[in-house]
């Protein structure tokens, strides 16, 4: 059994366990589980991180680099979905249903003795629901519930409980109080659906994600430790509710597996309070790397003078001649442009002279595999507090908005049995292997 808690930071979870706010999780840990700090994927957005977890391979193999991507020929923006994932997921490998391959798949697929049945609920970036061995209800960014459900026979049940794919995050802009309420309502429905499948269906692999935590953090992370914050009490209440639900799932797991199975809880990234939002495209413009035309939408505006542009959160692409119709940067010039962009990004400083960018990775350093052709040339990770954004519309480099929290790469977590050998600081990419190994023992 795998429980995903979207966007729950290791540091916060540890603090809440120590403060006695999560007694059930504390009890589980006392049963012989270890809470580890874990690295998310790069970049640390849910679509990439969960896909890295689900497939157990690097974005260079699975091909997902963000919620948005560009078609180089037309500069048009598109939204990668489950059909764009180039590597098989754990449930495809274990269910023996996938037609894709990956390094992990090749290592283990022959050892999977019998096809395993999986129940996969609310995992981000699994929309549309693709045929598999078991049941799948897609998570964010699912649009149409019918297309988010496999097999179709599950749909009437979801409809009967007024299942919600996600909260309306739009609401948070107008009325934060009402949004907080809807988070709890959505969590109730999520719990109901997860409990239903847990008890009514048979399974080998059960994997359910709670995504309300991520939404809570986006809008209320400042309330996580500040006792004077008007939403502090609700924030804590959410975590105590979450703690109770973890117990229900863990008890269900123990009953079915007689405590011999594989149990894991993890998040896909951490969270930190926002000091400032940093808009990378206006910065590139300021430094003369980006020139936008009047006509066109989003990245269609990229003009001939553009040498580099950014996609959310901080994926920098060089506008090279071979890939883009209006690109002017030649193969020979590219290393020099890259060096200059890097140099400019390292000078970016925030409020009190603090450095905004913590690390800059060239793609060769972090991505390996057949899908690296579509990878960003540089990916930046910020220091905590500086939320890097891809917006093209902003005029200034720094700003604030309704958001209270930002993703962090270094502070995800996992809870695992100590018998599972992990690196000192494990990465979310390496988790799937342990799960598949369990099934092939």
């Amino acid at each position: 059994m795998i429980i995903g808690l979207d966007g729950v930071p290791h540091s916060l979870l540890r603090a809440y366990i120590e403060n006695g706010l999560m007694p059930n999780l504390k009890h589980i840990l006392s049963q012989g589980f270890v809470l580890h700090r874990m690295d998310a994927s790069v970049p640390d957005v849910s679509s990439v991180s969960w896909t890295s977890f689900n497939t157990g391979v690097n974005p260079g193999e699975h091909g997902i680099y963000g919620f948005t991507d560009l078609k180089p020929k037309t500069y048009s923006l598109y939204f990668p979905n489950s059909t764009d994932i180039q590597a098989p997921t754990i449930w495809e490998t274990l269910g023996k249903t996938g037609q894709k391959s990956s390094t992990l798949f090749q290592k283990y697929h022959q050892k999977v003795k019998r096809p395993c049945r999986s129940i996969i609920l609310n995992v981000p970036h699994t929309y549309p629901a693709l045929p598999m061995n078991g049941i799948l209800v897609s998570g964010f960014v699912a649009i149409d519930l019918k297309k988010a459900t496999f097999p179709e026979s599950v749909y009437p049940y979801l409809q009967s409980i007024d299942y919600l794919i996600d909260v309306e995050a739009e609401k948070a802009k107008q009325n934060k109080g009402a949004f907080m309420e809807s988070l709890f309502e959505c969590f109730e429905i999520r719990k109901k659906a997860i409990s239903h499948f847990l008890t009514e269906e048979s399974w080998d692999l059960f994997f359910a994600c709670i995504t309300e935590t991520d939404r809570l953090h986006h809008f209320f992370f400042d309330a996580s430790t500040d006792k004077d914050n008007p939403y502090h009490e609700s924030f804590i209440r959410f975590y105590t509710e979450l703690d109770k639900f973890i117990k229900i799932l863990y008890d269900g797991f123990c009953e079915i597996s007689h405590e011999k199975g594989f149990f894991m809880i993890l998040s896909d990234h951490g969270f930190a309070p926002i000091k400032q939002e940093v808009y990378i495209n206006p910065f590139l413009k300021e430094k003369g790397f980006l020139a936008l035309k009047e006509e066109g939408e989003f990245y269609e505006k990229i003009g001939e003078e553009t040498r580099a542009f950014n996609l959310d959160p901080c994926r920098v692409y060089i506008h090279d001649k071979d890939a883009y119709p209006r690109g002017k940067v030649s193969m020979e010039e590219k290393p020099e442009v890259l060096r200059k962009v890097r140099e400019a990004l390292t000078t970016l400083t925030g409020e009190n002279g603090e450095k905004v960018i913590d690390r800059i990775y060239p793609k060769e350093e972090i991505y390996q595999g057949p899908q690296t052709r579509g990878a960003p040339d540089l990916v930046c990770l910020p220091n905590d507090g500086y939320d890097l954004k891809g917006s093209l519309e902003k005029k200034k480099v720094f700003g604030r908005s309704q958001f209270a929290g930002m993703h962090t790469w270094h502070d995800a977590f996992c809870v695992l049995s100590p018998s599972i050998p992990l690196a000192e600081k494990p990465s979310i990419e390496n988790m799937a292997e342990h799960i598949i190994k369990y099934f092939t023992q």
Partner: protein
Amino acid sequence: MDHLTKLENKSIYIIREAYNRFKNIAMLWSVGKDSTTLLWLCRKAFFGHIPFPIIHIDTSYKFPEMYRFRDDRVKEWNLNLLIGRNEEKLDQGMGPGQGSKLDCCNELKTNALKRVIQKYRLTAILLGIRRDEHGIRAKERYFSPRDSQFKWDYENQPAELWDQYQSMVEEEEHFRIHPILHFTELDVWSYVKREGLPIVPLYFSKNGKRFRSIGCAPCCSPIDSNAQTIDDIVEEIRTTKTSERSGRAQDKENIYTMQKLRALGYM
């Protein structure tokens, strides 16, 4: 009875049925091929004189050829034309260059139509949508209720069996009626040919390109085509593998995805 006559009969039956049930009814005309076909069917249903107004939602960004075509037909067919424009937003400079395309469509199309519906207290509108046009329309009914927020609850609509249409309207609701829902793109072109219908010249090839679907000029792009006559178009559609609206910037699912990503600050 041949295929096109069957389609025509069904449409005319629905148009007459709708007119009989609703006092305040109007037809929405985008000037494109589908709603022009519907307009033609309305004329046929009432022997040349349409007894209700025709609404054109004018975003001010339509192709000049479309305005010309509209005005010519109004004169020729003696139509009672109502023009719906969101003047307030247009004065503020709303357009596809300002803000997102989503906002632009929402203000200049949806909100403009809402105003017209309120102003004339319309309880029903005839529209020229077709079932094969877009995935989201596959669940449409001939009589499709909308609430005051324009929301369409597609999971809660009455069955339509043996031509028994559910056409009762609640307060605060209006009905959308789709008399050509059963036409395909190919049917429309075959019908245009059979009836000798005039059509906006943008649909025909000029310098190797033609429009397969038309709307606002900044948001439509032409396809590669040498089809210069309706026969050429029919032949082209018979063999094509790309979708009709591929030249259109808007796609419902993408719009929702964009909305959701924006709400969480991912764009």
